[in-house]
């Protein structure tokens, strides 16, 4: 039965109260541990086409008669386009249409950063479109630029009011503490750089708009485009079957989609609008920088009595302010916590969600200062963490938490530190550090799935979600195969098309598997129930004695054993259709993911080079559906996090606000040569309160603790405290110099 509930919905750590229609989820969870299919390593359903280059990405879509669009972007960090003359563009060869501010959502007269979209041109070739965009004559009125976040906060240039949080009496606790540590930590702006840039191909078919786009949320794009163009959502079809990476930056439609849609309408031809790599690094989103002034206080026995933080999120011109203070509020059982977060509005490119936004930045500061506290108290960092482990989320009980088990499993990696340190020499100092992780990842309703069983005994799961490379397509197939009692190769998954499947949630916030997975299981169970009903009639048996196992319909007494395909062959063209919906999250409970990482580093004290040599990651995300895919997620998160920590940094010219690192040469993401040994373990204990699966998401947790764990390993190796990301050679040498007591060279 459908039920209407008022509930809190979480996406990427942001909460809102919403009305939701949920369907009951009467299935009980499978017992813990590997099943026939679920919990066993599976290679990807779509691996072959992706490896062989057959998967058709948005970048590969070439429609007959397709035009190419290019966007004119602001050359100034803050300016108003007083006049935009499209005529020079329209006079150029190959140009078919041009649009200016207000012609399409996303194109605006006020530019708040270098790269802000202003106008767009469609032409026969990409080169002609770019020449057309460059020819548009704009009269710019330049406005004042502010790019320094601290200056912006001082002057009250903020997105919203500062966010304040307090529990207990922070001042009193600090005053009575045995040890107090204070420090300022900074994280710099980093760029997503998914290899497929942001892009869309739009085509009008009658009054319907088909949008092929590289997105993490086909339904979100559908809604946004419908609203932006003033048409019914059902008149917008959004397709994304294969997607070349997102990491949080592709949750919305973007000016490129609107420009393509409007130019397609103007020309009557399909239009493709794709960002170049350089545009991608300027105008497609970023993880905002932060400044964190932190205080941590403890009693001599290691009890943390106070945590405080003044945070600045240097958001840029637009975006949303993620909870950088979240880890400080949630990770430890500290009675007295006070935080304030100000969000600077500066003339730099907009923030977009990037893999655990806020918590990646906040965990760096918190988990480094907790280690500094442990060092001051001469306490073991692992014991310090165990002692202060939170027992509730600010009073709300957890649906499940196995961080203590993660700590227990971390011990053997932590014990290696004596041997690791002993391998230091005069130049290369080695050490071990750790950091813990808390993050969301429980998903939630609504999400739906259908199953279609044919007379050939094959099953198609239909759900309009997207697989952005995380392997969710495979996980869904495993869940359906498990429930239906068939091998994995009998199941296909049809996804990525809003016109051809029911609503499914976005692929962000570690929410796809915990949101869509239970709906898939429910849909498979619905189909199975119908097969059993038919079999009961055919063999004159009671439904309750029948089951499907190993693709065979069997009776409890063992007398009946009929091959499923053989049985279904009588159906002819008839199909069995199952449907399923995601049930509600447990009320009054906090659904969170946990983990710990132990990192071994080597630091060259002469050059400041830092090498990560080994990472052990232990995560608690409920039931693991596909251990192989899960391991890939952990490795990917860690490697991306190593990039954030050691080499990635968006550089900006402070005079003009221009991004200097617009290429993959200047902006340094990790290569295969930077990869350490990675050991990965899961607690793999289903969350008994969460859905029919007990599974949480894993896309984000692994990237959360890595920076702090590296920072703490560096301290262990050298005694130096690093406070700024990325830990470039300059930052490392500065920290080493400070450690030796010499004045820090700035």
């Amino acid at each position, binding site marked *: 039965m459908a039920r209407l509930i008022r509930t809190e919905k979480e996406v990427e750590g942001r909460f809102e109260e919403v009305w939701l229609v949920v369907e009951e989820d009467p299935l009980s969870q499978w017992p813990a541990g590997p099943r026939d299919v679920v919990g066993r390593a599976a*290679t*990807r359903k*779509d*691996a*072959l086409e*992706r*490896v*062989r*280059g*057959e*998967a*058709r*990405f948005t*970048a*590969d879509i*070439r429609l007959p008669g397709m035009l190419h669009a290019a966007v004119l972007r602001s050359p100034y960090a803050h300016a108003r386009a007083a006049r935009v003359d499209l005529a020079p563009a329209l006079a150029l060869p190959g140009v078919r249409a041009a649009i200016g501010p207000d012609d399409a959502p996303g194109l605006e007269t006020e530019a708040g950063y270098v790269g802000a979209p202003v106008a767009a041109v469609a032409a026969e070739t990409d080169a002609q479109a770019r020449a057309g965009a460059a020819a548009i004559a704009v009269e710019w009125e330049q406005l004042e630029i502010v790019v320094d976040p601290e200056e912006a906060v001082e002057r009250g240039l903020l997105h919203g009011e500062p966010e304040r949080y307090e529990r207990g009496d922070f001042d009193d606790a600090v005053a009575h503490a045995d040890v107090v540590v204070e420090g300022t930590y900074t994280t710099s702006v980093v760029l*997503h*750089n*998914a*290899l*497929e*840039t942001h892009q869309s191909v739009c085509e009008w078919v009658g009054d319907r708009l088909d949008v092929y786009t590289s997105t993490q949320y086909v339904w979100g794009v559908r809604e946004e485009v419908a609203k932006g163009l003033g048409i019914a959502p059902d008149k917008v079809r959004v397709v994304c079957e*294969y*997607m*070349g*990476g997102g*990491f949080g930056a592709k949750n919305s439609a973007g000016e490129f989609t609107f420009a393509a849609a409007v130019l397609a309408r103007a020309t009557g031809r399909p239009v493709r609008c794709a960002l*170049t*790599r350089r545009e991608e690094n300027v105008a497609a989103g970023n993880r905002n920088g932060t400044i964190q002034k932190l205080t941590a206080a403890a009693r001599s026995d290691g009890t943390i009595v106070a945590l405080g933080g003044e945070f600045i999120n240097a958001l840029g011109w637009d975006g949303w302010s993620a909870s950088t203070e979240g880890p400080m509020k949630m990770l430890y059982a500290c009675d007295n916590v006070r935080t304030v977060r100000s969000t600077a509005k500066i003339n730099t490119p907009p923030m977009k969600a990037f893999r655990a936004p806020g918590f990646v930045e906040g965990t760096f500061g918190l988990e480094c200062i907790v280690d500094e506290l442990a060092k001051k108290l001469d306490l073991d960092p692992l014991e310090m963490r165990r002692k202060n482990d939170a027992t509730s989320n600010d009073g709300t009980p957890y649906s499940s938490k196995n961080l203590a088990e993660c700590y227990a499993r971390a011990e053997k990696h932590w014990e290696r530190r004596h041997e690791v340190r002993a391998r230091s020499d005069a130049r290369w100092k080695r050490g071990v550090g750790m950091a813990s992780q808390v993050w969301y990842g429980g998903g939630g309703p609504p999400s739906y799935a259908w199953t279609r069983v044919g007379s050939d005994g094959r099953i198609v799961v239909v759900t309009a979600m997207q697989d*952005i*490379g*995380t*392997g969710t397509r495979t996980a869904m197939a495993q869940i359906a195969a498990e429930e239906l009692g068939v091998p994995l190769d009998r199941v296909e998954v049809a996804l990525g098309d809003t016109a051809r499947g029911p609503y499914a949630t976005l692929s962000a916030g570690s929410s796809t598997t915990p949101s869509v997975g239970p709906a898939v299981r429910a849909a498979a169970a619905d189909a199975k129930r119908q097969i059993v009903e038919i079999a009961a009639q055919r063999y004159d048996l009671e439904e309750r004695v029948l089951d499907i196992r190993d693709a065979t319909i069997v009776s409890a007494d063992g007398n009946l054993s009929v091959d499923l395909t053989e049985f279904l062959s009588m159906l002819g063209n008839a199909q069995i259709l199952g449907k399923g919906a995601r049930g509600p999250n447990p009320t009054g409970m906090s659904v969170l993911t946990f983990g710990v990482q132990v990192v071994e580093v080597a630091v060259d004290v002469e050059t400041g080079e830092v090498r990560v040599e080994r990472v052990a990651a232990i995560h608690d995300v409920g039931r693991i559906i596909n251990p*192989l*895919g899960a*391991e*890939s997620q952990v*490795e*990917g*998160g*860690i*490697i*991306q996090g190593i990039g954030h920590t050691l080499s990635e940094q968006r550089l900006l010219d402070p005079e003009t606000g221009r991004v200097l690192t617009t*290429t*993959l*040469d200047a902006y340094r*993401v*990790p*290569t*295969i*040569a930077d*990869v350490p040994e*990675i050991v990965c373990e899961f607690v793999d204990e289903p969350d008994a309160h969460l859905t029919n699966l007990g599974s949480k998401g894993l896309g984000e947790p692994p990237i959360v603790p890595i920076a702090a764990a590296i920072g703490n390993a560096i301290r262990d190796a050298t005694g130096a405290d690093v406070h700024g990301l990325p830990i470039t050679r300059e930052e490392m040498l500065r920290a080493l110099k400070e450690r030796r007591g010499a004045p820090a060279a700035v």
Partner: protein
Amino acid sequence: MKLVVNGEEHVVEVPVETSLAEVLRDELGLTGTKVACNEGHCGACTVQVDGMPVLSCITLAHTVSGRVTTIEGLRDHPLVAAFVRADAVQCGFCTPGQVVSAAALVAASPEPTVDEIRHAMAGNICRCGTYPKIEEAILHWRD
């Protein structure tokens, strides 16, 4: 101009400034070769010319006289199965380029060491971070 791609000879008429990647993708429809940066920094567009890995996005088509091999010509290479087995693919946008680079490596050095793999593959960026699995796939490519 004439271009030999995956053993087949093609005649194409393109302006002199056209890159090899553009010819492959737009003229010949061989979209397995991906363009991710279009300036020679990421390796996604890697193809082989006479067995040597070449960045097709910064190679002018008119300068190519050798035999071009793209991912479409390597679809039955044992490396493909090795990549699938090892889960050396996440979003898959860089993967064809990775396979093309790896195929050139194992042709020159059928039993590459980890150091050789890291050296040969360092020009192929994977933002999803499948590197450990790529290394494993290449180490065990003939299994």
